[in-house]
């Protein structure tokens, strides 16, 4: 497809369950970002990949959160032992430019995670 694709669109998890969220960036995009958006708030940075290298993971809230991009294309955000405070929309963005979000960065539609 032409845009950033995220799956699943919606995920309901029982507290304590592990989840995996997938991001398919635009083909050829070197930069990939994960953001977390809680209800009524703006997106908050989680992590940044340049190709397969995770250059910044300072926004991951705890060691329960893990992200990977092994071949420099598809990325997976994994959350272990989910808690209710993990309920949010998880947004992925990609860009052909390295560095911060910029004019050529595009967001996916997000995955809405609800932990019950």
């Amino acid at each position, binding site marked *: 497809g032409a845009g950033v694709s995220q799956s699943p669109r919606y995920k309901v998890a029982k507290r304590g369950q592990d989840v995996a969220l997938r991001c398919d960036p635009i083909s050829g995009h070197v930069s990939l970002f994960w953001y977390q958006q809680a209800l009524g708030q703006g997106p908050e*940075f989680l992590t940044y990949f340049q190709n397969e290298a995770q250059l*910044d993971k300072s926004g991951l809230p705890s060691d329960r959160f893990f992200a990977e991009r092994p071949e420099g294309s598809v990325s997976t955000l994994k959350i272990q032992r989910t808690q209710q405070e993990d309920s949010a929309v998880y947004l992925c963005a990609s860009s052909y430019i390295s*560095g911060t*979000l910029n*004019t050529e960065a595009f967001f996916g539609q997000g995955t809405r995670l609800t932990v019950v």
Partner: protein
Amino acid sequence: DQQVKQNSPSLSVQEGRISILNCDYTNSMFDYFLWYKKYPAEGPTFLISISSIKDKNEDGRFTVFLNKSAKHLSLHIVPSQPGDSAVYFCAASGGGFKTIFGAGTRLFVKA
């Protein structure tokens, strides 16, 4: 500690009039600012940006003004259209890979 603040949760404007959305920041290291527009159930869409070497950037109906001394930026939409109704996010970055977003302002444009 909110480094980017959008103090108006919502704004209502008549079609054809000007919409002004405001944003304040606290970190003087920020040197690049963006505005995003978001419709329900969609990801944010880039709207317009400005770097700290400028004080104004214009793109069609959208103009962003930056006042570095006041650490304030604003987005002007003229004329406002019903399709502009959305949530608008102000965002800022300055070195590194992290972009900081405000909490958003919901704009309603009435026909």
